[in-house]
């Protein structure tokens, strides 16, 4: 089985469900702009190469609306283009912790269930 994420409906839904957690986890490492975030998600196998990249920006907007992430424009020196950077908020860190705990608990439950179905 390849590590490359497949592009069937079930795989897409599965990755969509974990997208917010993945984004918050990346933001926790430090501020990042949209393009680098998408590259990181693809590299980490959390996004199919053909996946619609706009969905990541949609998720960023949603996280910002919920107060879990914030956006700011960076103004680089030497005439570089200003770039919109996303960062995690304190509320986002707490929410990420909660999501991570839930994800781990779900993983354990699924593994248990698949090994010993009722």
């Amino acid at each position, binding site marked *: 089985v390849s590590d490359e994420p497949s592009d069937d409906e079930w795989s897409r839904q599965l990755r969509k469900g974990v997208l917010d957690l993945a984004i918050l986890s990346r933001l926790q490492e430090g501020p990042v702009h949209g393009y680098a975030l998408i590259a990181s998600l693809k590299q980490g196998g959390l996004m199919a190469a053909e996946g619609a990249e*706009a969905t990541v920006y949609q998720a960023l907007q949603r996280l910002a609306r919920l107060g879990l992430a914030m956006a700011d424009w960076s103004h680089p020196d030497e005439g570089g283009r200003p770039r919109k950077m996303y960062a995690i908020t304190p509320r986002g860190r707490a929410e990420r912790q909660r999501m991570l705990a839930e994800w781990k608990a779900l993983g354990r439950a699924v593994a248990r269930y698949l090994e010993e179905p009722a």
Partner: protein
Amino acid sequence: MTTTPAIPPELEARIHERIARLGPGRRRAAARAELHDHVVQAVQAMAAGGRPGPEHVEAAFAALGSDREVREAFFPRPPRARLQWPEVALLAGAAALAGLAIALDGGGEASCEVTGTGRCTATASGVAWDVLAFAAPPLVALACLAWLPAWTALLPSGAFAAVTLLRAMSGSGGAAELALDLGLLGAGAATLAAVLLALRRPRRSPDA
């Protein structure tokens, strides 16, 4: 180390043109800048080591998704109020009440012509104008709630409530005048109440 290829002016123009088509309007400049930044980086990455071409621009936009997905991500419409039947009924009732009160009164001061005896007689066009003017704000508020950002409904409904309140306070007496003022006051209050009710509901995202 890979050098970042510069984007030729004709490609820049192509990118700008596509972005402007997706999200026109002055207020979307920041979102357009973010989209532009993304596309430029994608084009540069795709053309690494070579000269960026139109095919890279097309591929960068294609990777983002459909036009609809791009619009929803970068240029989302503001959330609208969740309109339900109590607000619709209140606003429709307010418009009907205002129209009825004005029509029964035979028009306001601005809608009459002075006859030879010095009396003010309502004209059909004057009455129609008054009915329209007073019944319109609740209907405009309803349209705002349905199609525009919810806060815009406060403008017609607030103005209508204020005008009707002032009119009632400066009432010049007489049973007919009092009935008219009370009718309009009720319509103004109902309009404002309907909008406040709608604003308190959870918002509905346009892409939901």
